[in-house]
């Protein structure tokens, strides 16, 4: 069993995948619904594929449409497999709940230090844990 990071679960379910870590806040509005490519001018993830990944970021941002955007991305295949974030806010938590994407936030240790891009990780929303595989 790999190292387990403990946090607060949002919603239900588990997902495994490759981690993609950013130190900048993200908006679901910029995730390509079908191709899963993140497009935000001057963002460090601009042009990178987040679809199917475990997206790790400080917090969500953006307009009130972000939940609908994530629901649509989930339906059309572009959504991340799970989300792990440092700070919870209403729009991001409700987005993951409504799109039924497992999420964990507020890990005991700084999550951006604890998880590295390309690591295989498992997110468990039921237990609020992230396991480095």
């Amino acid at each position, binding site marked *: 069993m790999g190292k387990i990071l403990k946090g607060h679960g949002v919603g239900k379910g588990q997902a495994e995948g490759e981690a993609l870590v950013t130190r900048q806040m993200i908006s679901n*509005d910029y995730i390509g619904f079908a191709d899963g490519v993140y497009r935000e001018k001057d963002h460090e993830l601009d042009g990178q594929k987040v679809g199917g990944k475990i997206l790790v970021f400080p*917090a969500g941002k953006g*307009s009130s449409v972000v*939940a609908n955007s994530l629901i*649509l991305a989930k*339906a059309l295949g572009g959504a991340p497999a799970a989300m792990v974030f440092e700070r919870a*806010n209403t729009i991001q938590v409700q987005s993951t*709940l*409504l799109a039924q994407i497992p999420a964990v936030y507020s890990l005991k240790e700084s999550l951006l230090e604890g998880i590295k891009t390309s690591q295989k990780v498992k997110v468990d929303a039921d237990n609020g844990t992230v396991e480095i595989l």
Partner: protein
Amino acid sequence: MKLTKEEQSLLEGEKGPGVQRSMRHLVETGEAFDAERLIPITAAHLVMLEGQVAGPAAEAFFGMPEPFLEDVTSFAVPTTLNSICMDLSRPEKMNISKDVQECVNKTTPKAIERYVSRGAIPTFTCTPYTIVPLTYGQHVAATEGGVVEYVNSVIGARTHYESIASAVPAAVVGKVPLYGLHIRKNRYGQVLIKIGDDLVPEIFTYADYGAIAFHAAALAEDRIPVWIGIPTMSEAALKYFTIAHCISGAMALEHVVGVTPEAPTLEEAFGPNKPEGTIIVDKKALDSAYEYMSTADKSEVDAVVLGCPHLDINEIKEIAQSLTGKKVHSGLRFWCGTNEHTWQLAQKMGLVDAIEKSGAFVTSNACSGTCNFPMMPDLLGVHTLVTNSVTCAVMVPATSGNQVLCYYRNMKDCVDIAVKGRVS
């Protein structure tokens, strides 16, 4: 979470599946934030996304609210509605082709019926508080970034930053989980924002207010800002200023010392908090925001959008005055957007005629700039637009996949560009 007997029965499905799913969503949200209980709200504001856009996107959004509305006969609290996608009563004036009208008519009337038949108030505006006022300290559930920011910051009512999809369950049940901005101690400032010595707030345009807020909010991220150095602001200035915070940042509340109600003084704005940092917004920051939001490169302009559709009567008067004796460039669409209440007032004052004499149009209830141009760039023939709205300038390129690009300019420059047909 502790639920009352009545709440528990709703969760068990006593009032039908829509109420049950809505309750479940509120409980799941509450649990994610360790909320102890639900609290009643006195009003809600909803965005009918399926009626605010048109085409395939509207079809895609249609199914989303349905689980929460199944067998629900009326919303539990007074519920206002956001803008719709087009001015349905004046399509010919907007020079909208039959194709576009048909596309809109497939979904928008059905969307309106869905909410109005359940008792929603057909305000169709992103400034609902101007028609159905709220008061300080009221607990409400609002979505639409601009409404959330204004309601929290300027009115001092309390709302979460509800996403569009999550405001429906709150309106159905008439409650929200008690956490975050509904609790006074979570509403104090966290980061200080100062106006640089090389800027003069007294001569800020609406676009300047949007630009400084857009720039600073990106740096403040999700910390509640406290602005100092802005002596006074009009309702319109506050509208442009507050909404820009949620486009680049993630806060749903900001304070302006001496202007907004929870910030009579710097000390009261921060309460027990120590400022986590200071952001200075100077001339360079202002210019960089204009530059960031100006993504277009062609000098020929297809459309000018003022108010999308948030114009108040004073702004409409300003536009009418600046268009006096002028003609909008042939082939360019110049849309000025407001709500039906204000449109009627402007009509009575002769302002609609004054503006339309120039070739511009005053549209009612329509989120046309932000919603239609990105969804139907080819049908409407618009690929380059000019606006003084941060939302429009940032969201249109994003939602159109960069098929429609923008120039961010102040109102006076927007009018000049509409006349010339090009950005010089």
